[in-house]
C-alpha cells in the first residue's frame, strides 16, 4: 500500500487532465446529484459522494455507440465494423461499481468477445475510491460489494490529509510513477482495514435478512409465485428506468440509421431493458413477455439466478439506484429479496 498527500494527488490528476490523450472523468456534484462527468480540474472531484446517478458503465458501454458503418460508392458496397477505442481515466469508482464492471468484463471480454466493449475497457484506467457515504437505498454491504480487493487499477482510501492507495495493476503503478508517493506505515494499513471493516458497513441503512448466496434458490422457489409478482408490479409504468440505471444491466438493441440523402449510414446500439413493453416481442404481434409481472419476474430472476447459473455472479450489487430513480416508486430489490425470503420461510414451516 502507498500513501500520497492530497495536494500531490490533485497535482497528478491535473497533470493527467492536461497531458493524457484520454479524457479524465470523475465524480462531481452537479448541483442536484453526483455524476461521473468530464473533469476539468482535480478540485472538482467529490470523493465523499453517496452514489452517482449512473455508473461508469456509461463509458465502457455508452448509451449509444456506432458498431458498424456502411457505404455504397459507385456500386461498391462496403460494411465496416467499428470499435471506438476511446478509453477513459475514471476517478472515484465505488467498490460495488467495480464489481459490476468485473461482471461485464467476464461476459463481454472473457466469455463472449465484444470488441466495442473490450477496446474501451482495456484502454481505460479505473481509479476506485472507498465509500465515505452511502445512499439511503443502498445495501451493498449485504451483497458483499461495499469493498473489493480487485477490479481496479488503483484504489483510494481517504485518510484525512492523505490518500492510502492500493495498487491493483501494473498500469495503476505506472500512473503513480511521476508523483511523490511513499510506502504506507503499519498504522495506515491498519486504518484502511478498519475503515473497510467497520466504517463502511456502518454507512448502510438497509440490509438483506439473509446471505446473498441463498438468492438463486430463493428466486427459483418463487418463480411461480405470480401473486407476489403481480402485487409487486401493479404500479409499475414499464418505463425501464430500473434497467437504464443498473450497473450490471447490459441488454441492448441495434438500430440501422441512414444518413439522409446518401447511400451510407451506420448501425448503432443503444441500451435496452427487459421492463420495456416490447422487449421480447417479435414481428407479427407476438410478445413473449406481455405482462408487466412477467417482465418484473424476469428482471429479478436474471439478477439473482440466471446470470449466476451462466456466469457464477449475482448480478445485483446493492447500489440502490433502481430504487432511488424509479418513477413509480416501486423498484426495491432489497425489499423484494427479503419478502421472497420470508415467503420461502413461511412455506417451509
Amino acid at each position, binding site marked *: 500500500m502507498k500513501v500520497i498527500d492530497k495536494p500531490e494527488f490533485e497535482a497528478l490528476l491535473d497533470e493527467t487532465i492536461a497531458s493524457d490523450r484520454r479524457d479524465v472523468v470523475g465524480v462531481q456534484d452537479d448541483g442536484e446529484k453526483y455524476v461521473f462527468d468530464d473533469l476539468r480540474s482535480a478540485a472538482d472531484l467529490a470523493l465523499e459522494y453517496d452514489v452517482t446517478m449512473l455508473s461508469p458503465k456509461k463509458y465502457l458501454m455508452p448509451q449509444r455507440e456506432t*458498431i*458498424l458503418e*456502411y457505404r*455504397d460508392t459507385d456500386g461498391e*458496397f462496403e*460494411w*465496416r*465494423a*467499428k*470499435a471506438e477505442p476511446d478509453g477513459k481515466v475514471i476517478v472515484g469508482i465505488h467498490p460495488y461499481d467495480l464489481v459490476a464492471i468485473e461482471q461485464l468484463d467476464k*461476459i*463481454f471480454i472473457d466469455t*463472449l*468477445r*465484444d*470488441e*466495442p466493449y473490450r477496446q474501451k475497457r482495456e484502454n481505460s484506467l479505473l481509479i476506485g475510491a472507498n465509500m465515505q457515504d452511502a445512499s439511503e437505498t443502498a445495501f451493498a454491504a449485504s451483497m458483499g460489494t461495499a469493498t473489493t480487493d480487485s477490479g481496479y487499477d488503483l484504489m483510494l482510501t481517504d485518510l484525512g490529509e492523505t490518500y492510502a492507495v492500493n495498487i491493483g495493476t501494473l498500469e495503476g503503478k505506472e500512473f503513480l510513477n511521476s508523483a511523490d508517493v511513499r510506502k504506507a506505515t503499519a498504522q495506515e494499513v491498519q486504518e484502511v482495514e478498519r475503515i473497510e471493516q467497520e466504517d463502511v458497513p456502518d454507512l448502510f441503512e438497509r440490509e438483506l435478512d439473509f446471505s446473498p448466496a441463498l438468492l438463486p434458490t430463493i428466486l427459483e422457489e418463487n*418463480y*411461480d409465485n405470480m401473486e407476489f409478482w403481480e402485487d409487486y408490479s401493479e404500479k409499475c409504468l414499464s418505463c425501464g428506468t430500473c434497467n437504464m440505471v443498473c450497473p450490471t444491466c*447490459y*441488454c*441492448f*438493441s*441495434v*438500430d*440501422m440509421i*441512414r444518413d439522409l440523402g446518401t*447511400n451510407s*449510414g451506420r*448501425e448503432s*446500439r443503444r441500451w*435496452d431493458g*427487459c421492463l420495456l413493453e416490447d*422487449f*421480447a*416481442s*417479435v*414481428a*407479427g404481434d*407476438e410478445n*413473449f*413477455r406481455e405482462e408487466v409481472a*412477467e417482465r418484473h419476474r*424476469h428482471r429479478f*430472476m*436474471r439478477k439473482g*439466478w*440466471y446470470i449466476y*447459473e*451462466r456466469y457464477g455472479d449475482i448480478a445485483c450489487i446493492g447500489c440502490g439506484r433502481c430504487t432511488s430513480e424509479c418513477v413509480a416508486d416501486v423498484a426495491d430489490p432489497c425489499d423484494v429479496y427479503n419478502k421472497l425470503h420470508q415467503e420461502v420461510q413461511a412455506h417451509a414451516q
Partner: protein
Amino acid sequence: MRSSTTAKFDIGENEYQPVNGLITRTRPFTGADKLFEIQLPDGEELGHQPGQFVQLLVPGVGEAPFSVTSSPTKPGPFELTIRAVGNVTRALHNMEPGDTVGIRGPYGSGFDPDVFEGEDILFIAGGIGLAPLRSMINYTLDERERFGELTTVYGCKEPVEQLYPDELEEWAEGDAMEYFETVDQCPQDQEWDGPTGVITSIIPEVDIDVETTKVLVCGPPVMYKFVLQELDEMGVPDGNIYLSLERNMHCGRGLCGHCQINELYVCTDGPVFHYPVVRDKQEAEV
C-alpha cells in the same frame, strides 16, 4: 447439439462485421413469403448446420435473424425464406437480384446430422416453420442412406401459404419420404383437394415407431403445445423430440438479451432445443 457462438466470418474490426451477400435469385410463393438465394463473396459457402440462422442486414433499414432454409449439402449460394411482416422483411421483399445485403453468421445451435444418423425421423412443420426444417429435410434426402425412415407432416392455415410447391410434389410422389399435408381451412377462392383440419388432426395418421423415431418440430408459437400434447398421447418419449424456436434477436451472440427463454439464450443455446431442455421453462411456451 453443437453450440457455436462465433461467426465464421470473423474478419473485421469487431464481431458485428457482416460480409456482402449478393441476392442472386428471388422466388415469390403464393402467400406473403419469398425465397431469396444469396451468394457470399468469392462464391464461399456459408458452412452452416441445418437449423442455424444468419443475421441479415438491409442497408438503411435494419437487421433481423433468419433461419437458413437450404441444406448445407446444396453447393453454392444459400437460401432464406422470408415472410413480409416487419420493416426489414418488407424492405427485403422489394429487393431484387443484383441487390446487396449484409450477412453475419451462421449462428446458433442447429440440428446436428450426426445425432440423427441411422434414426427414423418425423418432421412436423407448421406454416413458415417449414423454412428451417427444410434445411434438415433436404439434408436427409441428399444423404438418404445415412438415415432411417423419413416422414414429413406439413400444416398451413390455407393453401396459398404453402412453400416450395415443386418440392412438396416431389416429397409426396417420391419414395424417399412419407409426406402428409393439411390446411386449417380452404377459403372459397382457393383450391385444395387434400385434408382439412389443424396439423394435430393428421399426426395420428402417421405410421412411425413411436418408441424410437426422432421428431423435429417447427411452427408458429401457438402450435407447439398442441403438437407436443399429441406426441405425448401417441407415446413419443420427450427425449426423442427436438424443437426449433423463434424469438427476437439483435446480436445473435448471447449478449443483447431479447431472445431469452428464462436463463436460456435462443441465439446460442438454440434455436434448436432438445425438448427436455425447454420442457419446464415457462417462457418457452411449449
